[in-house]
């Protein structure tokens, strides 16, 4: 193996290494997608892959799901607290899903594997996939209403699932005994491992080419480049303090509004994001672990930064985040969190953008602000099934164009399950899948329209909903009108319509239909013809 020295050709080599690292993360994603079983991973791509160095700093990440971006490093830090570096051996795979160890919500299971090169721990490769079920009180492990983490599924603290390359069968059996569709979980676990092995192999090759010391040094230099570029972008925000607050429809149990506050302080080349003033820990599952909060902040600043800048730890070095103790953004065991990752996260982005809109013209009005989580599972253990899906909605309008209709915005970008794939797999029938006309907010630029998705249950089923913006609509900006709130219904066999709340777990008899109408995006500026 040759070890190369830096010369004035640094930039060339760095450019090449950057591409190679990004490519490795991307290739891990390709392997994970192809090898996984559940429609959730395969069709909807609800997973992320990344590379870290041994200091738990992000080296490269493939562009998969934004809500995973900041959450991964919290998970690694927690793992390293439990497993000091010297206890980690080649071939070990440590997994976790506990939100109190850097997880987000229980269905998201993180896999982490060390990469040893020349007998030293050089990198970590990891991935996180949303599993269609991880046990708990309802199929899909996303209960509409829950007040303790135990209801939401099996809690996995950092634990070795593979010990020096060998599966720890006791742990595997324990996990599989607690989930509803065993073979699917097993298949997805194997897929997650296959992706890590591919990442390991590629990092070894890269190190072989450049020499490990040179490669690690290049990784640090790439972080410094991203840091410097981020500071340049940050200069576009005028120094000052910007505040905003918005609400969740519900605390997860009752329909009391829940306040989320942000104060952004920009000084020279640093930015402080403080969530002081946010409501305390809530009784229901809207609490968001701090890893989710990090993800939301990072998402916004990643989106505001030129896309050619590499996503790594350097990009986020000058962002400081302040989360108040005992707030719903810093919940303690055993607070319920299943909706924090999927719903509270969207509101966090809304408030950060609302604050930034006071100084930056390019900030758009609020997008639908929810993921409209739908889980449908069988009532009977026989022919068990679990279908989970999120539904897109209207995007907020901006100062240059209308918001796009029927699309995923901000913290998720999962694909829908094709209707034909869904009906071939589950005892369900889709009756409508269309754009919800006139649901975007009015304005000079109109908000995007939401979606209508109607699904008939062909057998007795349990439906769980976690959806927001059913009471408080997505805001418009600079005089633009808010988007329409979303609506959920049950239609029974007689055709009678029953309105369902934003969060609910409801029994459906065979022949009954669930209708979800998702919110529209906010409008931008006063309409030119405001008599409209």
């Amino acid at each position, binding site marked *: 193996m040759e070890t190369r020295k830096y010369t004035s050709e640094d930039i060339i080599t760095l450019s090449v290494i950057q*591409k190679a690292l990004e490519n490795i993360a991307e290739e891990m994603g390709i392997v994970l997608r192809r090898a996984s079983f559940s429609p959730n991973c395969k069709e909807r791509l609800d997973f992320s892959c990344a590379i870290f160095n041994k200091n738990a700093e992000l080296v490269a990440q493939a562009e998969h799901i934004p809500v995973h971006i900041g959450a991964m490093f919290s998970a690694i830090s927690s793992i390293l607290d439990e497993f000091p570096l010297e206890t980690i051996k080649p071939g070990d795979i440590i997994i976790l899903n506990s939100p109190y160890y850097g997880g987000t919500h229980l269905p998201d299971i993180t896999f982490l594997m060390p990469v040893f090169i020349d007998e030293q721990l050089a990198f970590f490769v990891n991935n996180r996939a949303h599993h269609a079920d991880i046990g708990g009180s309802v199929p899909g492990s996303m209960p509409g209403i829950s007040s303790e983490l135990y209801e939401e599924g099996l809690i996995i603290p950092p634990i070795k699932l593979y010990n020096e390359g060998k599966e720890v069968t006791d742990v595997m059996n324990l996990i599989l005994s607690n989930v509803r569709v065993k073979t699917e979980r097993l298949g997805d676990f194997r897929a997650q491992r296959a992706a890590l092995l591919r990442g390991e192999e590629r990092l070894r090759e890269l190190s072989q080419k450049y020499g490990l010391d040179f490669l690690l040094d290049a990784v640090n230099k790439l972080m410094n*480049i991203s840091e410097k570029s981020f500071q340049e972008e940050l200069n576009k925000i005028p120094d000052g303090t910007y505040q905003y607050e918005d609400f969740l429809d519900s605390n997860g149990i009752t329909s009391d509004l829940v306040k989320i506050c942000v104060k952004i302080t920009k000084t020279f080349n640093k930015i402080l994001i403080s969530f002081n003033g946010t409501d305390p820990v809530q009784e229901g599952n809207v609490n968001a672990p701090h890893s989710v909060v990090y993800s939301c902040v990072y998402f916004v600043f990643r989106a*505001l930064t030129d896309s050619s800048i590499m996503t790594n730890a350097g990009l986020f070095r000058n962002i400081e985040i302040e989360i108040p103790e005992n707030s719903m953004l810093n919940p303690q065991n055993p607070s319920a969190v299943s909706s924090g990752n999927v719903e509270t996260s969207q509101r966090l982005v809304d408030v950060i953008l609302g604050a930034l809109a006071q100084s930056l013209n390019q900030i758009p009005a609020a997008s639908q602000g929810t993921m409209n989580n739908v889980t449908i599972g069988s009532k009977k253990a026989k022919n068990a099934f679990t279908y989970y899906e999120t539904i897109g909605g209207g995007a907020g309008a901006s100062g240059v164009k209308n918001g796009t209709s029927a699309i995923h915005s901000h913290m998720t970008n999962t*694909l829908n399950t094709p209707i034909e794939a869904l009906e071939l797999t589950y005892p369900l029938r889709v009756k409508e*899948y269309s754009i919800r006309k006139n649901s975007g907010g009015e304005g000079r630029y109109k908000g995007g329209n939401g979606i209508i998705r109607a699904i008939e249950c062909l057998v007795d089923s349990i439906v769980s909903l976690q959806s927001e913006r059913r009471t408080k609509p997505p805001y418009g900006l600079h005089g633009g009108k808010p988007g329409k709130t979303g609506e959920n219904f049950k239609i029974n066999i007689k055709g009678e319509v029953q309105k369902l709340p934003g969060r609910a777990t409801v029994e459906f008899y065979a022949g009954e239909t669930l209708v979800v109408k998702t919110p529209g995006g906010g409008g931008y500026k006063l309409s030119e013809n405001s008599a409209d």
Partner: protein
Amino acid sequence: MRCLGIDIGGTFTDFIVINDEGEVFLEKISSTPKDQSLGVRNGLIQLKKNTIISDLNILVHGTTVATNAILERKGVKTALLVTEGFSDVLEIGRQNRSKIYTLFPDRTEPLVPSNLRFGIEERIDSTGKVIIPLNLLQLSNILDEIAKNDVKSVAVSFLFSFFNSNHENRVYEEIKSFMPNLHVSTSNWVLPIFREYERTSTTVLDAYVAPIMQSYFTSFTEKVATEGINIPPLVLLSTGGVTQMKNAAERSVETVLSGLAGGVLGGLYSCRELGMTNALTLDIGGTSTDVAAILKGQVEISSNNEIGTLPLHIPAIAVRTIGAGGGSIARFEHGILRVGPESAGADPGPACYNLGGNLPTVTDANLVQGFLNPNYFAGGTLPIFPDLARKVVQKLSEELDFDSVEQCAAGIIEIFENNIALALRKVSTEKGYDSRNFALVAFGGAGPLSSCSLADRLAMSTVIIPPYPGVWSAYGLITADIRHDLSSSYLKPLLKNDQKSNQILEEAFSSLAHRGIQMCVDDGFAEKDVLIARQLDIRLEGQSHELNVPYYGNLVAASHNFDRAHELAYGYSSPDEPREIVNLRVSAMVHLPKFSLPALKEGNIAINDGFIGTREVYLRGGYREVNIYQKSHLKANNVIIGPAIIEQTDSTTLVDIGWKARVKLDGHLLITKIR
């Protein structure tokens, strides 16, 4: 016997005539994008000055007409009929945004706007049973609306039509009886495969380009007839097969990736001629690079394709295209040097063309390093100016504080080649193929120059340069065979030893094969000459990604092959898990006569016949004197030790340090790593 290939690219239209006396005639003229058949006629007029084309036996055409119509959104006004409640599926797509880190989620606009998308009452369930009958009254109202809107073409895509096509076919007949001039594409005809968005998108693409292709084929046939060619022209399909234009007009969507297939076929030919079974093909042009894999002597066919981000799920040769070519622009942004995907194209082109380009490109960097001969670029027909190239590269060099202009130029090439190497890895190592056992077939104007360096990056030890690298896509056309691909969704469990289910499978296959045979007969061939190949898409039950394996009538063998494919693709297999047959695929083929390339004069190893002098070239961080050879003067068996440069009218080959080239009897260069 005499054969003509006509390949239309973005910049040039290439012609190649070959006969069984071993003569080859080439012609290269500017493309005429507004009406590609005009350029064809211009070329034929030129070609007739050198050779006879009236007694042709075969004429094969590769076209980008359908491709351009879609990319430039110049297809016909199209309406879409779908199951009621689902008229927005085409717009919603998979509900994801194209860029993940953005505050402005966006996607490609659908080809059919919402006012021309109609839902109609009907429904078939997931077993193929009708649960809501087709509402014919509603259909007639929709047809009135379509008539009012001056629509030229209609796509029909109902849920589960691949299990029960009656409703779609009924709509087809209704439209044809009321509006016979309207083109109609039904999804059960275009792509009877499950997943409604992708099927609908593919069907819409067919409807959108069909009238254009039909009139283009008519115009093409007329133009060549004017020049004395009266045989029915064949057109290259995305799968690399050919069919008569009149038949292609019935399935226009199959020509959408025609323009990419020719190069891969050329690569396949080279690979076979030199006795290789595994190869990567590399076609580097002015703005883009196409790469593809050849496995066990076969091109790879994929069904998950897209064009301009719209899903196109018909089978096509698996080609990966990236924005890297001679015109790719180098720029320094955010601490990193990037090369491409922006391209200076042909106009203004690289700075050295002196047409106003003032940004450094790959061609400029190659010129600065002395790889290109300023007096012999494109055979001396296109003047290029080294001082202009040097000026733009120098500017970048100063900005980045390089020690020399050459060092900066080498850096540009390093990044350019790294981007291409990543694309080559995507079609090889990332799929589990060991690139060390592959040969690299390099062509296109700029392919041969980077070929050894790229091979080194993938640890490959064999490079093949075709005799006419710059027109090799056109050559690929005349190596093609008649081929029709048919598929249908099946979605039943794979039962290895169940006679009844075997019989059902055989019946389903034989109905597809029957259609394939009929299409070959329509191309003018006898049923006995048709070869049928059958394939199964299989997945583990519950998995949603299928793998394609050949089927020779034995499900045990197919199942075993599936396990091996799974192991290769994903690193593990599950031989005990139940599996499902997802789709059936049939290829119907007829072999066309083949021609040999003319033989060179025979020379020997010791004498380098084409040596024309030496040049100072910047290689591996310093200038060195490099031997220059003229390709047309080389003889078979000549061996050239690298570093050396071989010049010819349509390309320049660098035999890099550590490599040696052997001239083959048919004009191929076989370049191998010196051990």
